[in-house]
C-alpha cells in the first residue's frame, strides 16, 4: 500500500510540532546547500569545462544541466515551506453541499459504487451524478440509489461542450449548495470526507481544499508509477506553504462563490475583448464594402453602420459599459438595414456563411469556439456585397455580444482554456486573491490505468494540459499572483519540458563510447568534486523531503517518459500558436488490450538497444586503445544509470494489471 497519510492523531502535540519545525530547518539547510553546490557546478561547467571543439553536443549538455539546476532549485523553493497543517477546524453547522460525480463513459457499476459511497457521506449533502454520456440505464440506477442525476441542458445542443469543465459548468447552474465536492467516477469517498475538509472554509478567503488521489488497483511495486506520493505529499504541502496548493480535478471541495466569481470576471473579460475585436473587424469590412456600394441608398446605409461602429468603439475606449454600447449598436444596424431592400438574398446568405466559416473556429479538443485574429482579418479582407456587409456585421457582433450566443451559457466558472481544467481554474482563483488548502489525508480511493498504453495516454493529456495553460496564461505574467505563486506554477510547467534534457543525457555517453566525442573538457578531480557534491546534496534533499515514501518510480518515469514530454510540448505549442488539434482522449478507467503496447514506447526500447550496443562498442574501443579506460568507465557508469532508469519501461510492458481486478468485473 505504500505509506498512506493517515489521520493525524498525535501530530498536534507539542513534541510533534517541535519535530516538524526541526525537520523544516533541516530541509531549508539542504535546500540552500543544494542550490549553492548546484551553482558551484553549473557556473564552472559554463566557464571552465565546455569542450568547444565538440560544441554541438557540449552546449546542449551544459544547457540540459542548467535546465536541471533550475528544476532542482524550484523544488528546493517548494520544500522551503513544506509543512504539515495542524488538525483542521470542525466543519461549520448547516453548510449546504453538493457532491458532484463526473462521468462520461465509465461502466455503470463503477459509477454507481462511487455514487452510493458519496450518498453515504456523513455530513448532510446532496449527491449528483453528472452523466455526459446521458445514459438512460445510469439515470435509472441513480434514481434507484436515491441520488440526483444531471445531463446537459438543451442550451448545449450544437454548442461547444468543453468536456469535463463543461459538464461541471452545466451542473453549477442546476444545483445550489454553498460548497461542491468534486469526484471522478472512480473515486470512492470516505464517509468523513466532508467532516474533515469543510472546516477550512471557516476562513472566508478559502476557495478550495484539495485532498490526495490514491489508487487501490496498484501493486506494491507500482510498475506504472500511478501513485504520486511526492506530489500528494511534500510538493503539494510546499505549494500550500506558498498559498499555491493546486486543484487536481477530483477529491476537492470548492466554494461556489469563488467559482461563480471566476465565471463573472471571465465573462466580462472575454466579452470586452471579443466585442472590441468584432467591432474593429466590422469597421474594416464596412470600409471595403462602402467602396463597392451599388447606389446612394446602400452607401448611406453603410455610412450609418460605419459611424455606429465608430461611436461604439470610441464609447468602449472611454470605458462605457459594454452592454449599453452593443445595445445601441445593434439598434443602429437594425435602422440601417431597414432602409435598404434585400434585393440579392443569395449574396447575403453567402456572406453569412462566410462568417460562420471564417470568424469562429472550433477547437475540437477544447470544444471551444475561438474568435481568432487571423480569421477575423481574413473576414475583413473578403469582398462583401454592401447589404451582405451590414447583415454580416450584425451577425458578427451578435455572436460575441453580452449574451454570448456562441456558448451554451454565458458564464463558464470552471476554466475551459485547457484540456485539463483544474490547473487553470486554481491559477485564476489565486489571481483573484482566494486561498487554497492542501489537506494531507487520503479521503477517497480511486482506480489508476492498468496498462502502459492508457497510462501513457493519461500522462500525455496532463502534460499537454499543463503546457497549454503555461503558453496561454503564463504564470510569470498573470496579474494578481504573488511571486511565490508564480514560481510554484512555473515549477510544475518547467518540469514538463524535461524531455529535451533527457535526450541529451541519453545521447552523451553513446557519442563518447561509439565516437570518442567528449562534451566535457576533462573528467578531472575538479569535475567530480563539484558534480558529486551537487548530486549528493540534491539526492539527500529528495530523501529528506520524501519522508520515507518511495520516489524512485517517479524519478524513473520523469526521465523514461521523455518521448511523451517532448510530444506534449510540441503538440501544445502547435495547438496554442497555430491552432492545431491535440488528439485528446478521455483516460480509460478499465484495462485496455495489452498487445502492441510496445508501439507506445518504441523510442525508449530503441534507446535501450542503442545504450547496450554503445557499451559493447565502447569496451572494444578501450581494449584496442582508442580511448582511455578512465573516460570509458565514467561513460559506462552513466549508461548503467540510464539503463536502470529505463528498465521501468520493460517492467511496465510485462505488467498484466492488478491481480484482483482480473478476477473482478473487468
Amino acid at each position, binding site marked *: 500500500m505504500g505509506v498512506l497519510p493517515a489521520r493525524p492523531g498525535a501530530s498536534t502535540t507539542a513534541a510533534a510540532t517541535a519535530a516538524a519545525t526541526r525537520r523544516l530547518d533541516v530541509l531549508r539547510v539542504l535546500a540552500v546547500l543544494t542550490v549553492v553546490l548546484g551553482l558551484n557546478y553549473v557556473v564552472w561547467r559554463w566557464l571552465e569545462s565546455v569542450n568547444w571543439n565538440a560544441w554541438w553536443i557540449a552546449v546542449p549538455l551544459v544547457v540540459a544541466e542548467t535546465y536541471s539546476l533550475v528544476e532542482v532549485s524550484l523544488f528546493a523553493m517548494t520544500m522551503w515551506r513544506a509543512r504539515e497543517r495542524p488538525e483542521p477546524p470542525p466543519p461549520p453547522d448547516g453548510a449546504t453541499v453538493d457532491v458532484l460525480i463526473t462521468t462520461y463513459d465509465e461502466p455503470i457499476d463503477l459509477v454507481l459504487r462511487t455514487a452510493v459511497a458519496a450518498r453515504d457521506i456523513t455530513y448532510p449533502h446532496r449527491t449528483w451524478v453528472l452523466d455526459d454520456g446521458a445514459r438512460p440505464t445510469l439515470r435509472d440506477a441513480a434514481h434507484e440509489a436515491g441520488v440526483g442525476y444531471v445531463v446537459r441542458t438543451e442550451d448545449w445542443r450544437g454548442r461547444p461542450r468543453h468536456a469535463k469543465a463543461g459538464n461541471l459548468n452545466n451542473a453549477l*447552474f442546476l444545483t*445550489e*449548495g*454553498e460548497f461542491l465536492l468534486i469526484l471522478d467516477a472512480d473515486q470512492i469517498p470516505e464517509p468523513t470526507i466532508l467532516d474533515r475538509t469543510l472546516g477550512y472554509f471557516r476562513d472566508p478567503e478559502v476557495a478550495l481544499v484539495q485532498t490526495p488521489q490514491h489508487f487501490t488497483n496498484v501493486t506494491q511495486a507500482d510498475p506504472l508509477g500511478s501513485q504520486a506520493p511526492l506530489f500528494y505529499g511534500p510538493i503539494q504541502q510546499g505549494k500550500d506553504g506558498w498559498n499555491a496548493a493546486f486543484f487536481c480535478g477530483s477529491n476537492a471541495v470548492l466554494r*461556489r*462563490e469563488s467559482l*461563480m*466569481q471566476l*465565471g*463573472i*470576471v471571465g*465573462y*466580462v*473579460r472575454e*466579452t*470586452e475583448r471579443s466585442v472590441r475585436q468584432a467591432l474593429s473587424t466590422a469597421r474594416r469590412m464596412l470600409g471595403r464594402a462602402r467602396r463597392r456600394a451599388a447606389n446612394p441608398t446602400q452607401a448611406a446605409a453603410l455610412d450609418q453602420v460605419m459611424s455606429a461602429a465608430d461611436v461604439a468603439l470610441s464609447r468602449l475606449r472611454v*470605458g*462605457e*459599459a*459594454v*452592454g*449599453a454600447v452593443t*445595445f445601441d449598436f445593434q439598434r443602429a444596424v437594425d435602422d440601417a438595414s431597414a432602409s435598404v431592400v434585400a434585393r440579392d438574398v443569395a449574396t447575403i446568405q453567402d456572406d453569412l456563411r462566410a462568417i460562420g466559416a471564417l470568424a469562429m473556429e472550433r477547437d475540437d479538443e477544447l470544444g471551444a469556439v475561438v474568435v481568432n485574429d487571423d480569421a477575423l482579418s481574413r473576414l475583413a479582407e473578403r469582398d462583401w456585397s454592401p447589404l451582405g456587409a451590414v447583415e454580416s456585421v450584425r451577425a458578427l457582433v451578435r455572436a460575441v*455580444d*453580452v*449574451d*454570448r*450566443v456562441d456558448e451554451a*451559457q*454565458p*458564464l463558464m466558472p470552471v476554466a475551459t482554456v485547457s484540456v485539463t481544467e483544474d490547473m487553470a481554474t486554481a491559477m485564476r482563483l489565486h489571481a483573484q486573491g482566494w486561498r487554497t488548502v492542501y489537506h494531507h489525508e487520503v479521503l477517497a480511493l480511486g482506480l489508476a490505468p492498468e496498462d502502459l498504453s492508457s497510462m501513457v495516454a493519461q500522462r500525455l493529456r496532463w502534460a499537454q494540459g499543463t503546457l497549454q495553460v503555461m503558453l496561454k496564461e503564463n504564470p510569470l505574467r498573470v496579474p494578481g499572483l504573488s511571486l511565490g505563486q508564480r514560481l510554484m506554477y512555473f515549477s510544475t510547467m518547467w518540469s514538463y519540458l524535461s524531455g529535451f534534457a533527457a535526450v541529451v543525457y541519453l545521447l552523451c555517453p553513446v557519442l563518447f563510447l561509439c565516437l570518442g566525442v567528449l562534451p566535457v573538457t576533462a573528467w578531472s578531480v575538479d569535475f567530480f568534486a563539484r558534480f558529486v557534491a551537487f548530486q549528493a546534496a540534491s539526492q539527500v534533499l529528495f530523501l529528506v523531503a520524501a519522508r520515507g515514501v518511495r520516489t524512485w518510480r517517479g524519478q524513473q518515469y520523469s526521465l523514461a517518459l521523455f518521448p511523451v514530454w517532448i510530444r506534449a510540448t510540441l503538440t501544445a505549442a502547435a495547438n496554442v500558436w497555430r491552432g492545431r488539434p491535440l488528439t485528446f482522449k478521455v483516460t480509460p478507467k478499465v484495462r485496455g488490450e495489452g498487445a502492441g503496447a510496445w508501439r507506445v514506447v518504441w523510442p525508449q526500447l530503441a534507446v535501450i538497444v542503442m545504450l547496450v550496443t554503445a557499451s559493447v562498442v565502447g569496451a572494444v574501443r578501450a581494449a584496442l586503445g582508442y580511448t582511455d579506460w578512465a573516460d570509458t568507465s565514467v561513460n559506462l557508469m552513466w549508461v548503467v544509470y540510464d539503463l536502470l532508469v529505463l528498465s521501468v519501461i520493460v517492467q511496465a510492458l510485462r505488467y498484466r494489471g492488478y491481480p484482483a481486478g482480473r478476477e473482478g468485473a473487468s
Partner: protein
Amino acid sequence: MEYETQEVDGTAAVIVPRGRLTMASAPELKALVERAVGSGRTLVVVDLGETAFMDSSGLGALVGGLRSARTAGGDLRIARPTEQVSTVLELTTMDRVLRPFDSVEEALDA
C-alpha cells in the same frame, strides 16, 4: 427573499428583489426574467434598491437574464444598487458590462 414584478406596459417590466439575492434565490430571478420576456416584455429592469446583499450567483442570474432578454431582441438593465451591491459590481468588474442606472425611470428610457 421575495420578488415583485411590475408590468410597466406591454413591452417592459420591472422586477424588484427584496432581501438577499444569493445562490439560493438566484434561479428564481432568472425564471422571472424569462417569464417577463416570454410574455413579450423584453425590456426588463431589475430594481436593486431593496436588495440588501448580492453574491456572484446573483450576478450570474443577472447575466442569464440579460441573455434571455437580448435573445428576444430586448435588454436587461439594473437600477438603484445598494452600497453592498455596487461594491460587488465593481469587485467582479461586472459594471463594465452592466452599468447601473440611478433610477428605474432612467433605465426604462435609456
